[in-house]
């Protein structure tokens, strides 16, 4: 892939966010810093970790996994078909281990897709659902959990205990990763924020919540296994698509399109950064 094509692609990705075009030079990622010396764990953080451990024992995300499994095998939609022929990258119907190898390039669509996007693609092509309908209210609220959310939770649960191994062998995948890195570091909006403002350095926090440095594997995994996750507040199940959307809102950016190239790129960046770490399964949040 030429440098020109890459830039053009990045601009195209940003166009959906109504951003001004950017050049590669503007958004060079910060130079890697040497690892911080090991310090005694913060007592507050340690208590939070204990709290999280207790929560993880009985994660209501399991209920959504069960629901998602039911949906996966159920004959639904205008075509009255199940998702058993859905190819998540490891062949039609292979769910086990698929999640830790996404986002990846899919030759049938000529695009890199993350898990939610791929599931939507399957729901459209196999079951005959309309993308417009699926994208109308894509995120969960206390009254309603959209089907793709449960399906993502089921697929994610089928990679429990496996190592993240996001592929980077294809040029399209490397390109998507690069675009993701650009978006991660792109400062804009009324606060002049980028994702990296909060998630590009060690030891940052918002209120009492420590913020992981998503450029490092050990911390990127914390975000990556947090979602899909069950949020205690309101008792809702959320996916990474929602998390990214909400990050944009928190930065006061224009809302990104649901299941767009930009979000896939960001997720690819996050997933590749978490490579080699063990995925614990759907998460739980306070």
């Amino acid at each position, binding site marked *: 892939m030429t440098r020109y094509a890459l830039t053009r692609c990045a601009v195209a990705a940003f166009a959906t966010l109504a951003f001004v075009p950017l050049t590669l030079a503007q958004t060079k990622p910060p130079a890697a810093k040497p690892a911080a010396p090991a310090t005694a764990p913060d007592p507050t953080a340690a208590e939070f970790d204990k709290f999280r451990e207790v929560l993880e*024992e*009985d994660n*209501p995300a*399991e*209920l959504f996994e*069960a*629901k998602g499994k039911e949906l996966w095998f159920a004959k639904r939609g205008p075509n009255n078909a199940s998702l058993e022929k859905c190819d998540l990258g490891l062949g039609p119907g292979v769910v086990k281990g698929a999640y830790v190898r996404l986002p990846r390039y899919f030759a049938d669509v000529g695009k890199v897709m993350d898990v939610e996007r791929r599931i939507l693609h399957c729901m459209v092509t196999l079951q005959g659902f309309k993308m417009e309908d699926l994208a109308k209210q894509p995120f969960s*609220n*206390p*009254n309603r959990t959209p089907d793709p959310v449960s399906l993502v939770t089921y697929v994610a649960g089928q990679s429990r205990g496996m190592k993240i191994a996001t592929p980077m062998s294809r040029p399209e995948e490397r390109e998507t990763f690069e675009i993701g890195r650009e978006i991660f570091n792109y400062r804009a909006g009324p606060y002049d924020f980028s994702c990296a403002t909060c998630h590009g350095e060690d030891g940052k926090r918002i209120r009492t919540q420590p913020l992981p440095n998503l450029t490092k594997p050990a911390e990127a995994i914390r975000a990556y296994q947090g979602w899909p996750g*069950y949020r*205690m507040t*309101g*008792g809702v199940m959320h996916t990474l698509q929602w998390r990214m959307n909400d990050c944009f809102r928190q930065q006061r950016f224009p809302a990104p399109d649901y299941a767009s190239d930009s979000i896939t790129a960001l997720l690819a960046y996050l997933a590749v950064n978490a490579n080699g770490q063990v995925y614990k399964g759907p998460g739980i949040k306070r």
Partner: protein
Amino acid sequence: MADPMKIRATLQGDVADVRVLMAHPMETGQRKDASGNVVPLHFIQTITAQLNGKTVFGADVSQAVSRNPVFAFKVKGAKAGDKVSITWTDNKGEKRTDETAIGAG
């Protein structure tokens, strides 16, 4: 029909540690939906647990309990393979019973 519960029962000595995760909206009657209407009360009122058909645990529950609640309790004198069944009833009269066998600890 309510969604199934997830029941985990493991043995430690002769004490079974039972944990139940229930799928229930547990509406408090205080919340309003998007159009401003109050979401009516809908919550689990009673929970009973049976070990091989004998009631060993009962609880009266209020709407103060969270959505998709978890309950945990211990039962003495249980053996591996014993059947634990849990039943909840909510204020709409809806009922759900699930059963599992106690696994070795």
